[in-house]
């Protein structure tokens, strides 16, 4: 396959992003909304292309790997970006300026994640990571004139840059102890038993850096504040896509390059998993703000995804792929509802959601099913994906870990249902009109709801795709 065809998804994404940047300057002020439609349509087209090329396999200049595993993640990022764009039409239109740049940044950060998921080389990996992080910092400050948004931006850039520097020190030691930045060459050196003390130190730094990016406890402290302050569609995108991108890169570095040193880092991952699942779920209980609640829930979801890494098997990787895809739809569904609600009521407090079921049955239903899917209640898709994750760890003998995770899932049902209780049993504040949901968002909400039900009841197509991608990753 020629190079341009292998890179076609990335190239088109870059063109779309840069084109929107230029168009944003040319389009007259009243018609900027069209930019959002263009961005969403373009992303749909690119997603269709990526799906058509899902079996493509090849290596570009040694350091850039196109394989089903990377393409699976690219599809995931594209779906998340599409939903983000659709839910932003209204929200960003109200902010007034910089619409073209907003969509361009969303798309370019998607590009960064794609690079991250396909990087077979440390330098490429680092640059993809930085493109994603820096685009997100800018997006997080997008609510101009809002103190919380400014705070979110500064926290994200400082902790993002700090974690990148820590990760980078690990990468430099990894390069230094193997003499190469190519992941396949590194794995050759590690295979031949060449784990030096320096490499162990490098692994410690790498683990710290990646845990920051995944928002796993104890490296999670940036997440709630940034999630709360950033514009809601950006928070949604950040919570699903950047986490998935971090996992994709982690899998490439730790499973491929450092796979043979697995016993050295396995225990650390177990500790991160336990902490994330326990702390994320327990601290979510007292939260009063829907975005903070979802932030802690996403920390606990990082913990569940880490279960797949603990398993260190094809089943584990497949479960990570499957769970992260469904997590996109469940979390984006919840955040889209929060965005529409914020547009109507200017509030993110859970108590203000009182009586939402009467003001907009659609919003309340999507929130209900998204939260239930996050909690892992059958027949929703979240149940199946969590089931696979738990199976993967039980398969490797970590029964106690699976039991702990199930217990904590039950705790999560409690705080998710609190939101549901407010929405369905609370009385709407007097004088509040019904909330109108724009058509585009209605379609997006219906799609994510359909995905949650479809793959909950009939998961086979997606599981087959996820597990075949995982098998291709390991072969």
């Amino acid at each position: 396959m020629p190079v341009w065809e292998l890179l076609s998804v990335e190239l088109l994404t870059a063109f779309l992003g840069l084109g929107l940047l230029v168009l944003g300057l040319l389009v007259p002020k009243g018609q900027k909304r069209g930019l959002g439609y263009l961005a969403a349509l373009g992303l749909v087209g690119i997603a269709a292309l990526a799906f058509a090329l899902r079996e493509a396999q090849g290596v570009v200049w040694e350091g850039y790997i196109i394989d089903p595993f990377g393409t699976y993640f690219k599809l995931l990022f594209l779906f998340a970006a599409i939903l983000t764009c659709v839910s932003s039409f209204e929200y960003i239109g109200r902010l007034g300026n910089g619409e073209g740049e907003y969509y361009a940044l969303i798309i370019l950060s998607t590009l960064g994640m794609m690079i991250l998921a396909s990087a077979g080389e440390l330098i490429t990996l680092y640059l993809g990571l930085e493109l994603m992080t820096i685009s997100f910092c800018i997006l997080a400050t997008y609510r101009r004139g809002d103190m919380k948004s400014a705070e979110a931006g500064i926290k994200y850039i400082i902790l993002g840059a700090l974690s990148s520097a820590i990760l980078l020190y690990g990468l430099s030691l990894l390069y230094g102890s193997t003499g190469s930045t190519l992941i396949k060459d590194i794995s050759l050196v590690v295979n031949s038993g060449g784990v030096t003390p320096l490499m162990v130190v490098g692994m410690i730094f790498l683990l710290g850096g990646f845990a920051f990016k995944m928002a796993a406890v104890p490296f999670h402290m940036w997440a709630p504040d940034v999630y709360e302050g950033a514009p809601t569609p950006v928070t949604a995108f950040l919570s699903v896509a950047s986490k998935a991108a971090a996992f994709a890169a982690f899998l490439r570095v730790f499973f491929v390059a450092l796979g043979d040193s697995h016993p050295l880092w396995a225990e650390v991952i177990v500790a991160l998993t336990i902490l994330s699942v326990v702390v994320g779920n327990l601290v979510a209980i007292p939260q009063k703000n829907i975005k903070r609640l979802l932030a802690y829930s996403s920390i606990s979801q990082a913990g569940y995804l880490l279960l797949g890494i603990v398993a260190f098997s094809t089943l584990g990787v497949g479960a990570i792929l499957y769970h992260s895809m469904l997590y996109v739809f469940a979390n984006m569904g919840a955040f889209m509802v929060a965005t529409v609600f914020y547009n109507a009521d200017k509030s993110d407090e859970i108590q203000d959601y009182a009586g939402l079921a009467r003001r907009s049955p659609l919003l309340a239903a999507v929130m209900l099913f998204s939260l239930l899917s996050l909690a892992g209640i059958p027949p929703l898709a979240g149940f199946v994906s969590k089931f696979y994750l738990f199976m993967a760890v039980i398969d490797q003998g970590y029964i106690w870990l699976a039991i702990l995770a199930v217990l904590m899932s039950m705790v999560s049902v409690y705080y998710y249902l609190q939101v549901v209780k407010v929405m369905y049993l609370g009385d709407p504040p007097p004088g509040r009109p019904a909330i109108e949901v724009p058509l585009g968002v209605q379609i997006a909400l219906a799609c994510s709801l359909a995905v949650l039900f479809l793959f909950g009841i009939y998961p086979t197509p997606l599981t087959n795709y996820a597990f075949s991608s995982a098998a291709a990753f390991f072969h």
Partner: protein
Amino acid sequence: MGSTLTLVAFWILFVLVVASALAVVLLRNIVHSALYLVLSFVGVAGIYILLEAEFLAAVQILVYVGAVSVLLIFGVMLTRRGNIRQSNLFNAFSLAAGVVSLALCVLIILALARTPASLPLGSWPVDTVGALAEAFLGPFVVPFEVAAILLLVGIVGAILIAREVKEDK
């Protein structure tokens, strides 16, 4: 260059870099910190020259000393308020930060102590700049293009964030 001379030069630069880095971190006046940061960057450029990576040293001087430090000093000046002598204080976590940093320092030094230092000093390609150019536009062309987009994002973002908000609500 004789090896003793190199060693002496190395230790001088070591002291220069570490002392000025400590000054950056410990001083209470942020303007002084910024100036010591410049000194530290220059010292690192000296280290690169010692490694005979002259091109990297030139980039270091141009970008770090020339651009990054100036940007930082601009940042300090644009956001100045109150008593400049107390502008760079420690936060509430400084003790914990100190413990973590010290522990990591010990860890790194322990690992280095167990690493045999028997590698011979290699020599760069004759035409280092040419080799760099070939690497940038050959095997590393993907990160090269990503870096271009990253710079564009940085420029757009910096302008977007730092420009004055129009008051038209």
